[in-house]
């Protein structure tokens, strides 16, 4: 008897579900009223957003990790390159300060030089060298 009652309840819910699914959009919106429809829309959209964001982050997580690693490697490489260049230019500032008045200016401070200044200096010296060899 109990099982029959459970089955009846399930069947009733299935019928109710079927009726709700069959209702037209106008009927559905009219039954809830504009305010409740707006609230339902926002609530359901929030759930959709949550699931899409979760799916995005699970897809993006490995990519972001990889990109982060690559960026760190690039930064390390760039720093290494600058430091090689900076060491070379620092040595020039001591041994050949006449090459450019900016050589000593860039390396005057005890702080590490600005990589942009180092690059500019390197370009200036390279240009001078190229002009001389013409």
């Amino acid at each position, binding site marked *: 008897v109990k099982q029959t009652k459970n089955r009846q309840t399930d069947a009733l*819910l*299935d019928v109710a579900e079927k009726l709700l699914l069959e209702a037209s959009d106008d009927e559905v919106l009219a039954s809830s009223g504009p305010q409740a429809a707006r609230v339902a829309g926002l609530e*359901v959209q929030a759930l959709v957003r949550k699931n899409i964001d979760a799916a995005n982050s699970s897809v993006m997580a490995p990519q972001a990790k990889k990109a982060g690693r690559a960026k760190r490697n690039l930064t390390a490489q760039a720093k290494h390159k600058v430091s090689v260049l900076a060491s070379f230019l620092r040595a020039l500032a001591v041994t050949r300060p006449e090459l450019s008045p900016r050589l000593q200016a860039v390396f005057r401070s005890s702080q590490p030089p600005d990589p942009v200044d180092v690059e500019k200096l390197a370009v200036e010296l390279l240009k001078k060298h190229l002009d001389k060899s013409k």
Partner: protein
Amino acid sequence: MKLDKSEVLQTATPGEVRAALLGLSSADSVRLKQLAKLRAPGTGMEWADLLNEAFARAMGGQRQWPIGVPFVAFIAQTMRSIASDERRSRDFVVSLDEAQADEGPGRSDGELTPSTDVTPERELSAKQQLGQVQALFEDDAVSLAILVATAEEMAPDAIQKQLGLSATQYASALRKIRRRLQTFSSGD
């Protein structure tokens, strides 16, 4: 609408599921909330948790969306299945608790299997749901009779004959039932 069998069996890609979720209309949102509120009682879940779980399963691919089935109907089926599993697992916890409570010195087999019988918990949940539906139609015996007869898989013709309704009266009664169900499921 009659669907081609191959159309029903073909399942949507994750991108199609995502597009369907993003394309839900206001009416779809209301419908989904109503359906979730209908299924949630007795599961221990709020309607939003039930709907969220259905979305998650659809997005994660644990539930495959057959292309020929309308998306809202597919999510409704998913919620139905989740609700049913939740009720069963709640019954299982209850039956485990009962088994442990009953376990005396004479019982040493230690075998705990989920009960497929009607547990008091499941019966209570069914009673609550049945009570909710009955309460909705307590002042409208005809509507309740139509609902029960439909649940018993009686054909519309037979229901009309049994209740002495014309086709128009029957259609109007169905609209009334739908409205009540919608109002009930739309409330907070």
